[in-house]
């Protein structure tokens, strides 16, 4: 069905003198800015913003929206992204005026309801992590990583230890090394072994007295739980270092094992993944961190404390690293995380992980005879298949398969990540999908594998556009419309 009306660029459909949002007349007897302000402050230049009537504005964006895939419409097995269903009750409750209209600098006593929710959330995240202190401040996973690494740096500085290195497995997400760099550390890459786990020999050879932090993702980005974890954390601790857990994959282990229990000293959550914040085509997220007792003094301020006089923001944290952003945190996403945790309860959270892992293993079992799955028959909440053989035999790439899936109404898996598997296709079905969906998705994948290679190179065939010219986009970047 043609839904292209008013989908030209806003600037192209702009029409002089059209209006959407009108403002009231000024009801105070005060001169205008041009009379009251020195001319030097006033702009000489119109903004050039588009002029659009309400109906065109709505048609523009509503019709544009139909060009997206989204969880509410399509199965979205994007590995590492935990694209689980976003409950609708969260949107209703999160937009209650009593929550969404709270100003970040209101005095504590005027927002006790908000503080109570966030205080509880601190506690829940500590309990789920098996760690002692929580900061809800970081805006996303990457900022959580940075925050925790800054905490670690401050901790070592406080102990007067000069540790400069952060060790990171080669299968880690790119944010890990990037965060380490900003935190002022040198990054040392640790190899994965043939089983997709940490290569212990390589690790041991790289641990020394400059080792500040070992960052591990566990389950890792291959969807594997590294059973060496206790050994690893012991090694790091013995060397005087700290272990950081990248919590992007917490969806596999809620209530089953806790990072604090297997030796992590710090971790971040991706609340927008594990606790189902809507992804909004890129964000927002929320990346709270949890840390072991000795690191608590260094957490950013404020932290919420409960006093006999109600809940309070505690800024009195002399050893704190400071803050990594203005205001409290990405509260809107934290609220959704709270709603989710309260809806599921302890049994429910555990079942989330059980079913996430069940679904991933089931999908794996459906595909393993048809696709190359380098790391065995079992996985946690996701697994990585590879198109390397298909590529060799039939010139079909992971990209081709991903693009062709779009034609069938399925979002592509994460492709070409993690970097340690060539032609990687990383699939994470999540627990909110049904067996029926997994069955038809697997059947489709198997069907695609047998489709004509040339046809696949040109996929997708039924979407709004065919494959875009990415090289051109990068070579002569056009990052904005111009007249």
């Amino acid at each position: 069905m043609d839904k292209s009306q008013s989908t030209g660029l806003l600037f192209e459909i702009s029409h002089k003198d059209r209006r959407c949002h009108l403002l009231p007349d000024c009801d105070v007897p005060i001169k205008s800015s041009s009379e009251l302000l020195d001319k030097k402050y006033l702009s000489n230049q119109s903004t050039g913003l588009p002029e659009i009537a309400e109906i065109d504005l709505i048609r523009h964006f509503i019709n544009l929206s139909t060009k997206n895939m989204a969880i509410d419409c399509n199965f979205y097995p994007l590995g590492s992204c935990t694209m689980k269903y976003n409950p609708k009750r969260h949107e209703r409750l999160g937009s209650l005026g009593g929550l969404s209209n709270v100003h970040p600098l209101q005095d504590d006593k005027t927002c006790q309801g908000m503080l109570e929710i966030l205080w509880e959330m601190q506690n829940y995240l500590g309990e789920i992590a098996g760690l002692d202190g929580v900061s809800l401040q970081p805006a996303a996973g990457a900022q959580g990583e940075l925050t925790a690494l800054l905490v670690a740096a401050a901790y070592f500085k406080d102990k007067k230890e000069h540790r400069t290195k952060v060790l990171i497995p080669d299968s880690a997400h790119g944010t890990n090394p990037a965060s380490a760099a900003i935190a002022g550390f040198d990054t040392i890459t640790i190899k994965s072994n043939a089983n997709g786990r940490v290569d212990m020999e390589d690790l041991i050879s790289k641990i020394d007295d400059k080792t500040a932090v070992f960052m591990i993702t566990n389950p890792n980005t291959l969807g594997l739980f590294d059973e060496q974890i206790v050994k690893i954390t012991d090694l790091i601790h013995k060397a005087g270092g700290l272990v950081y857990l990248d919590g992007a994959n917490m969806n596999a282990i809620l209530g089953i094992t806790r990072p604090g229990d297997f030796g992590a000293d710090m971790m971040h959550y991706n609340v927008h993944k594990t606790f189902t914040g809507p992804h909004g085509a890129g964000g927002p997220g929320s990346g709270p961190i949890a840390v072991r007792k000795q690191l608590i003094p260094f957490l950013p301020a404020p932290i919420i404390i409960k006093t006999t006089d109600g809940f309070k923001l505690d800024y009195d944290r002399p050893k704190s690293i400071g803050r990594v952003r203005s205001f409290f945190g990405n509260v809107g996403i934290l609220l959704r995380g709270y709603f989710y945790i309260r809806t599921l309860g302890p049994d429910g959270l555990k079942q989330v992980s059980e079913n996430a892992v069940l679904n991933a293993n089931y999908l794996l079992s459906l595909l393993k005879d048809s696709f190359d799955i380098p790391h065995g028959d079992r996985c946690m909440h996701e697994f990585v298949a590879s198109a390397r053989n298909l590529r060799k035999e039939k010139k079909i790439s992971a990209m081709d398969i991903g693009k062709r899936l779009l034609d069938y109404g399925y979002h592509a898996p994460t492709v070409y990540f993690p970097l340690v598997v060539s032609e990687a296709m990383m699939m994470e079905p999540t627990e909110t999908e049904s067996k029926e969906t997994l069955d038809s998705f697997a059947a489709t994948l198997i069907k695609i594998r047998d489709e004509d290679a040339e046809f696949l190179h040109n996929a997708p065939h039924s979407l709004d556009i065919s494959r875009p010219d990415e090289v051109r986009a990068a070579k002569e970047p056009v990052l904005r419309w111009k007249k």
Partner: protein
Amino acid sequence: MSYLLNTPDDKVDMLKKIGATSIDDLFSNIPDSVRMKRLLDIPKSLTEIELTRHIDLLANANLSAERSVCYLGGGSYDHFIPAVVDTVSSRSEFYTAYTPYQAEASQGSLQAFFEFQTMISQLTAMDISNSSLYEAGSSLAEAILMAMAITGRSGTVLVAETVHPEYRLSFTTYLANLEPKVVTVACPGGKMCLNDLASKLDDSVCCVIVQHPNFFGNLEEVEEISKLVHAKGALFVVAYDPISLGILKKPGEYDADIAIAEGQCLGNPMIYGGPYLGLLSCKEAFVRKIPGRLVGQTVDRNGKRCWVLTLQTREQHIRREKATSNICTNQGLFALRAAVYLAAVGPKGLTETAELCFRKAHYLMDLLCKIPGVKPKFNLPFFKEFTIELPCNAQLIIDSLVDDGILAGLSQARWNPNLVNVMTIAVTEKRTRSELDNYAAAFGAAVNSFIAHDKSKAFKS
């Protein structure tokens, strides 16, 4: 559980296909020694009816701007959000999509972000803008990292004392273990002292940061600062208020190199501080040093115009420790909201909004300064936010106005113990004359009662 689809029968079938004896079997990789032997200690599950009741109660325990008249600012403002913004942002296809990695299945969001980038560039008169950062504080940190890379200087970052204290703290934290020192430029009269700036500017300075209007609401001398900064080869980084650009000079007009802002005011709720929207614009030449995602225009195989994420080699998932930034998840949904907001207000609406804020703020300032003992803290031009000095502790007034359903303003003592009598007040286009009159009356009454009280105390003692 409505979010878990596998029924007991399903599980049996699935385990059979997997070849596992139980779900527990699937977790056998996890050493028994570290497996939880108890349930998590969190409250038991709630149905939607129960959760709704629970949250309603907690929400009602807040004196939100819905139930009060809000004069708080300091980076978050009670501007009006047109209904169209919510309508668009709640579309499932925008709301529940991931980052548009698969361009073919994401043209809706990609085009919207391209429009966002364009409108932020138009608004600021800057060449280019990225497709969002977290919020203003960390955006300044990103701007500094950019400036370091662009200038190759890593000695000093100069920042006006009038920049939001939480922004200053944020980037200072980011820089904790990096080379540059953060040096504050004094602002004795409520805006940056140009002499102090000149004295601190040298070849090691990579950038100078100014907020305009600043944390007290005052306008800075951005044109002169810009000249001084550029004369020393440093970059001029400005934090602006997007709404103010309806009337004030745009960063591009005074030759800012990097302009960042808090985009909350563009159609996003205050929601206790986040998610907000970091805006970052800069000169074209800096394009490959920009942090965060960029949407670029290109064509598909049939020559059809389309949009993609581009210049990804700047980003962490490709460049890892050498990336321009560690940001991955950004604020896409809020960029979309800002795009809808800007398209809804349009050029005239933005100017009218700015003008309403300006005139109402000035009206209120005039009213308040008629109260004996109340006076402007600075005699500087301002936009929608202003700072006054009271004859008593500002917090007392703030506390007392809560009973009138008024969130009166920010006591500057929170950030500077020397400023106990100083209060900063923000006025948006939502405020009506009668609200402002009522506020001034309640304010006057509160001030009088505290003075009388003080006097009587003085008298008694």
